[in-house]
C-alpha cells in the first residue's frame, strides 16, 4: 500500500490528510455547537438546524455581494460583518420559531422532531425560491486565499486555518457563555429542574427563548464559516443533519467537552479511512462504528452521572 511513496512524501501525505481531518473537525464542531446547546441543554430535537446554518451562509453571500457592489474598498472585512449579521438573522428566526412552535411542544420531544422537519422543508423551499436551486459560492477575501508553504511538500490552505481558528474561538465563546455567565447558569438551572428554577425567580420562558435563539445563532455563524470552504445550496443543510446529531449524541448530549471530543474522533477516523478506502465506505464505516458504540454505550462518551 505504501510502496511507491518515499518517506518524506509519506510524511507529507499523513500531515496533509491529518490537516484535512482537522478542517473536517472544525466543521463538525461548528455544526455541533449550536445543536449541543439546543439538544444537549434543552433536549429539543431541531431537525431544521441545518437550515439555520444555511440561512447564515446565504446572509454571508448577500453581504459579500453588497460589499462588492457598494464598498469594494472594505471587501476584505466583509466576513466579520457577515458573521454578526448571520448570528442575528438565524438567532432572530430561532426565537420566532421557539415562540410560535417549540414552546408548545416541550413535553412532546418526538413531535418537536416532526414539526421542525416540516419547518426545514419550508425553509429549504424558501431558499430555493429566493436564491435558486443552484449552489452559490462567495468570493473569498484576498487575504484568505492561497496557502502557507510549511515545507516543500506540505502546504496548508489559509481558509482552512481560518475556519479552525473560528471554530476554536466560537467553542471558547460558547464555553464562557454556558459555564461562566449568569445566562449560562440560568440555562443549566432550567434544564436540570425547570420548576425549581422558576421558583427561585428565573424567567424560564425567556431563558428557553434565549437559549434556542443563541443555539440557532451559533448555527448561523457556522453557516457563515462554511462559505469560506464550500458552496451553499438550498439542501446543503439536510446533508449535515445526521452527522451533526451523531456528533452530539456520541459525545454525550449535555457535555460540551464530549461534543468536541466526539467531533475530533469522528472527523479524524473519517479522514484517515478516506485515504485507504473510497469516500463512501469511509463514511459508512465511521458511522457504523459510531452507531455500534452508541448501541453499547447509549449515554455517549462523556455522560453526566444521572440516576435513572
Amino acid at each position, binding site marked *: 500500500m505504501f510502496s511507491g511513496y518515499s518517506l518524506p512524501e509519506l510524511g507529507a501525505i499523513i500531515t496533509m490528510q491529518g490537516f484535512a481531518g482537522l478542517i473536517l473537525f472544525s466543521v463538525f464542531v461548528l455544526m455541533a455547537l449550536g445543536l449541543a446547546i439546543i439538544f444537549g441543554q434543552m433536549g429539543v430535537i431541531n431537525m431544521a438546524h441545518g437550515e439555520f446554518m444555511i440561512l447564515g451562509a446565504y446572509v454571508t453571500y448577500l453581504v459579500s455581494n453588497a460589499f462588492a457592489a457598494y464598498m469594494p474598498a472594505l471587501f476584505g472585512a466583509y466576513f466579520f460583518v457577515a458573521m454578526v449579521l448571520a448570528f442575528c438573522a438565524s438567532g432572530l428566526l430561532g426565537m420566532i420559531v421557539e415562540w410560535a412552535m417549540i414552546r408548545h411542544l416541550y413535553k412532546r420531544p418526538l413531535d418537536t422532531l*416532526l414539526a421542525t422537519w416540516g419547518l426545514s422543508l419550508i425553509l429549504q423551499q424558501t431558499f430555493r425560491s429566493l436564491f435558486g436551486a443552484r449552489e452559490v459560492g462567495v468570493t473569498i477575501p484576498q487575504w484568505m486565499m492561497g496557502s502557507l508553504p510549511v515545507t516543500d511538500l506540505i502546504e496548508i490552505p489559509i481558509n482552512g486555518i481560518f475556519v479552525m481558528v473560528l471554530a476554536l474561538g466560537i467553542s471558547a465563546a460558547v464555553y464562557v457563555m454556558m459555564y461562566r455567565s449568569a445566562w449560562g447558569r440560568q440555562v443549566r438551572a432550567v434544564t436540570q429542574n425547570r420548576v425549581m428554577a422558576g421558583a427561585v425567580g428565573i424567567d424560564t420562558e425567556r431563558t428557553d427563548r434565549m437559549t434556542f435563539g443563541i443555539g440557532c445563532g451559533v448555527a448561523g455563524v457556522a453557516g457563515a464559516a462554511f462559505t469560506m470552504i464550500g458552496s451553499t445550496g438550498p439542501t446543503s443543510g439536510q446533508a449535515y443533519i*445526521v452527522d451533526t446529531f451523531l456528533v452530539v449524541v456520541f459525545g454525550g448530549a449535555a457535555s460540551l467537552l464530549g461534543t468536541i471530543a466526539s467531533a475530533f474522533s469522528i472527523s479524524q477516523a473519517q479522514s484517515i479511512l478516506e485515504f485507504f478506502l473510497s469516500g*463512501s465506505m469511509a463514511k459508512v464505516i465511521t458511522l457504523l462504528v459510531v452507531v455500534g458504540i452508541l448501541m453499547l454505550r447509549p449515554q455517549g462518551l462523556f455522560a453526566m452521572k444521572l440516576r435513572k
Partner: protein
Amino acid sequence: MTKTSFLTRSEAVGLAILALIIFVAFPVMLDDFRLNLFGKYLSYAFVAIGLVLCWGAGGILSLGQGVFFGLGGYCMAMFLKLEASTPEATAIQSTPGIPDFMDWNQISALPIWWQPFNSFAFTLIAIFVVPAAFAFVIGYAMFRRRVSGVYFAIITQAIAAIATILIVGQQGYTGGVNGITDLRTLMGWDIRPDGAKTVLYFVNAILLFGCLVVAMAIRKSKFGRVLVAMRDAEDRVRFSGYDVASFKIFIFCVGAMMAAVGGAMFTLQVGFMSPTIVGIVPSIEMVIFCAVGGRHSLMGAVYGALLVNWAKTTFSESFPELWLFGLGALFIAVVMAFPNGLAGLFDDYIKPRLRGWRQTPATAPQPAE
C-alpha cells in the same frame, strides 16, 4: 375485563367501507395508470400500519422504516433481476447471465449472497426474515439498554443514512443510485402489462387487509394492551414484572416485516427499487403518512398514506414549488393542530353527528376523501 368480540360494530363498518373503497371504488373509477399509482400508495400503507403499532401504540418512533421497506423491496428486486438476466437476454455482456449493472462494474461472477435469490421460495422467506432479523439486532441492542424516544429516532435515522450511502457506494452489487431496474417477469409471468398491474393491485390490497387484521388482532390482544401501558408508563409496567424490552423488540420486528411486505409489493408494482426510497427523507415521510391518518388509528394509516401520496402526486405535478411548502406545513399542522390526525378529526366532528343518522350508516361520510 369483559369478553369482547374481535371487531366492534363501528370497526366492522369502518373495515367494510375501506374494503369498498379499495376493492370496488378505486378499480371502477380509476384508469389503469391511476390504479397502479394508487397501488403504489397502498404499498406505503403497510409501513404506516407498522408505524401505528410501533409509534402510536408502543411509543417507539423509528425514522428508519425506509430501510425495512427497502430491504423487502430489494429482496424482491434481486429475484426479479436474476430472472430477467438470463444468459440469452444478456448475451451482449462480457459475462452473460449476471445482472447488467454488475457487468458494467466489471464484476464477472454472481456474488455469493445473490445466489439464493434465484429461488422464489427463498426470496419470499427472505422478505420476512431479513428485515425482521435486522430489526431484531437493532432492537435488541437498543431496547435492552433502555434506549428510547428521541435517541432511538436519531439512531434509526442514522441507520437510514448509512444504508443509502452503502447502497449508492457499492454500485457493483446493488445497482447504485439507479437501483435495480428493468424488472420484467415473476416466475415467467410478465408484470409490465396493464392486466398484470391490475392483478398485482388486488394482491397488494388483499395483503394489506391481511396486515390490517393482524395489526388489529395485536392491538386487541393482551400484548397490545401491555404495549399501550408501556408507552404511557414504562416504569410501572417494568415494575409489574413485564420484560419491557422484549415487547418493544417484538413490535419493532412486526413493524419492520410489514414495511418489508410493502416494499416487495412496491417493487412488483412499480418495477424498480432504488436507494431514493430507503434514505432519510422517504423514511420520515413514511412517518407523516401515519401521523396524518392518526397515529393511533390503524385504518387511519391507510387513509393517511393514500391522501398524502395522492396530494404529493397531484401538487408536485401542477405546483412543484408549492408542494414542499405544503408538506412542511402538513408536518407542523399535524403535530400542533390535530395530533390525532384524520382519525381524530373523524372522532371529534363526524362521529357525534353520525349518531343522529344511525339508520343510514351506508351514507356515512368517510374519514378521508
